[in-house]
């Protein structure tokens, strides 16, 4: 190879790199971008995932497609439940792609990582999929709002109602992960505050397929209530196997602390019947929820989960706040969001606290018996409505500096 030709290829490589880089940076500056950062492909893809993108797009369309004279664009990505992937996507979105707000953020480790990015970049995140109350506790950030639910509200919802109904002795099957421990910790506090007691708990590694050993331990504890402080496939498998081992038939009851309508649909009523759980939203609440859910169903062939609905609600309120503030500035938008009550057909009687938690009504549901159900997605009956100040009351106080100091 002669010397002159030898220089051509390296030079071409450089030129190509410049072109690629130039192309990547060419973002039209006059659009408002909303990022949906979700688990698209793994454990939690059904409760958020592509459905979350659909919900956010619906909100954008319903809002009219533009704000402050700029077009609104929705971008989405799969964080694969890896905080490092999530964090670098979020940084790039904020720094390069002009993304103003990120929503969904299923799984706590991802939400916590992205929250730090948002804090550093002074951008807004509205968390819908992660449960950990640490997001508004010791890790709270000024520009983030925890929208739909957190471990505290789940604990208050299911914990208090079940104890009041006589389920005063508990045994926990806990996912050996921070959100599992947080659920167990918060529920334990609620149970004890309501006069119940916790007889024991077993920490189960994530993605354990077989729960029979743990169910036997729960059975032997003679506790009236077996609290399932887990999520996704773990929750599904533990409920399914509890039915197989005759736990419910033997007189003990299951309390699902983080169970979604998609999980119940997947399990089927035969297996899941009688399970009590707390949700922020159910498609069949009233005419408005049914109408919106029908539109969602037409696009996805599934009824929305509270995470997906929460993404719609969060996006809508964010856009309204941007419009009211007349600015995309994070502080101004958050100030606007916090200044008004949050009340739509998804989030009822809500307002945002200084720590970033959105306090609103939660609902305790019981899964119907197969005979009570009239349609494929007719899954829940309402047991109680839990007012926001009860649902989001932290039994052990809040470590968020913004609240303490």
């Amino acid at each position, binding site marked *: *190879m*002669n*010397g002159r030709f*030898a*220089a051509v*290829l*390296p*030079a071409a*490589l*450089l030129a190509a*790199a*410049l072109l*690629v*880089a130039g192309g*990547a940076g060419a973002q039209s500056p006059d659009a408002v971008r909303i990022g949906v950062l979700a688990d*698209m*492909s793994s454990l939690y*893809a059904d409760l958020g*995932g*592509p459905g979350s*993108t659909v919900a956010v797009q619906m909100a954008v369309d319903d809002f009219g497609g533009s704000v402050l004279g700029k077009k609104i664009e929705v*971008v*989405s*990505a*799969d*964080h*694969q*439940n*890896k*905080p*490092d*992937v999530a*964090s*670098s*996507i979020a*940084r*790039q979105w904020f*720094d*390069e792609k002009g993304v103003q707000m990120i929503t969904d953020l299923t799984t*706590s*480790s991802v939400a*916590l*990582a992205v929250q*730090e990015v948002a*804090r550093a970049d002074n951008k807004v995140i509205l968390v819908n999929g992660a449960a*950990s109350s*640490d997001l508004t506790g010791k*890790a709270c950030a000024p520009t983030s709002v925890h929208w739909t639910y957190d471990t505290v509200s789940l604990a208050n919802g299911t914990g208090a109602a079940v104890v009041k109904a006589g389920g005063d002795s508990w045994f926990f099957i806990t996912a*050996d*992960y*921070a*959100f599992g*421990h947080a659920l167990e910790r918060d529920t334990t506090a609620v149970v004890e505050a309501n006069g119940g007691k916790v007889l024991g708990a077993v920490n189960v590694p*994530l993605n354990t397929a077989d729960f029979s050993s743990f169910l036997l331990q729960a059975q032997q504890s003679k506790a009236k209530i077996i609290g399932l402080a887990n999520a996704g496939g773990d929750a599904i498998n533990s409920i399914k196997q509890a039915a197989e081992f005759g736990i419910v038939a033997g007189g003990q009851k299951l309390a699902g602390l983080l169970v979604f309508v998609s999980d119940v649909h997947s399990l089927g009523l035969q297996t899941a019947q009688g399970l009590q759980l707390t949700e922020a939203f159910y498609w069949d609440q009233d005419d408005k929820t049914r109408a919106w859910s029908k539109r969602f169903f037409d696009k996805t062939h599934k009824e929305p989960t509270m995470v997906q609905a929460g993404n719609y609600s969060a996006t809508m309120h964010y856009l309204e706040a941007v419009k009211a503030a007349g600015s995309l500035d994070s502080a101004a938008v958050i100030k606007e969001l916090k200044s008004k009550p949050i009340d739509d057909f998804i989030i009822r009687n809500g307002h945002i606290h200084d720590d970033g938690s959105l306090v609103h009504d939660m609902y305790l549901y019981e899964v119907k018996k197969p005979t009570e159900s009239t349609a494929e997605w007719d899954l829940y009956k309402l047991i109680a409505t839990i007012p926001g100040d009860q649902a989001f009351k932290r039994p052990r106080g809040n470590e968020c500096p913004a609240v303490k100091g």
Partner: protein
Amino acid sequence: MSRRAGLWWSIALIALALAAPFLFYPVFVMRALCLALFACAFDLLLGYVGLLSFGHAAFYGGAAYVTAHCVKVWGFPPELGIVAGAAAAALLGSVFGWLAIRRQGIYFAMITLALAQMVAFFALQAPFTGGEDGIQAVPRGRLLGLIDLNHPLAMYYFVLAMFVVGFAIVRRAVNSPFGQVITAIRENEPRAVSLGYRAERYKLLAFVLSAALAGLAGATKCLVLQFAALSDVDWTTSGEVVLMTLVGGVGTPLGPVVGAFVIVTMENYLAQAGSWVTVIEGLIFIVCVLTFRRGIVGVIAPCLTGRAAAPPAPEPSPP
């Protein structure tokens, strides 16, 4: 490679490396550089000693945890935090190596996997690691008390320097007499032993060096992304580094670097493809194994630089 072509390639790559933060998103390039160093460290073992470790995430992630803890909780400056991380990885590597080095092939891979799983378990259970939330919000701090690493460019050139140091150590090790001995051991261990080399000692040394460099990569990554998390020590991370090396080309100087950049780019851009990520990734691996067995560098580089075929053993050439 003709001397001339090599020179031009070197100039182009150095120019690209220096200009990258102005062309591409810096955090993306930094993350890719960390993983590239990780892959180079791994390839030192696979490509030159012929040992497939399936537990390298333990060093990468372990160092990230140590650095995160040192910097965030104990207030170490960044350079000391990185040294602490790499040193911890080297220590861990000497334990792993001491236990595993006598085994070969799949059994070596499995012992390293088993030990790494124990490290992952420790990372989940130990109180200071923050469970699956990891150690978040690790401060980048000031390098040597002078340079503020919160500035993206400062951080980028720091990461680039770390990468160049690590890469140079790998090349130096491979091209030194030590490198020739380990290659000889890979080719024919009994013969190397009969020539009086203490094969296990050399292999152990290579393993510890590889672990330390993987630790350097993990520690640097921890400062870039400002956290250490469970996914860093997960076995899938060990699998990922195997893939990067294979996709790029085992035992080629630039192969692991190219592989790392390809995989990170894929991960980054495919993430926008939503739920099709794993399907596309899987297809790429299948195609690679069926058609690109010597990796991108092993197949393409000879065409670009005018060599007939990749040489069986890598020869010294600057990046």
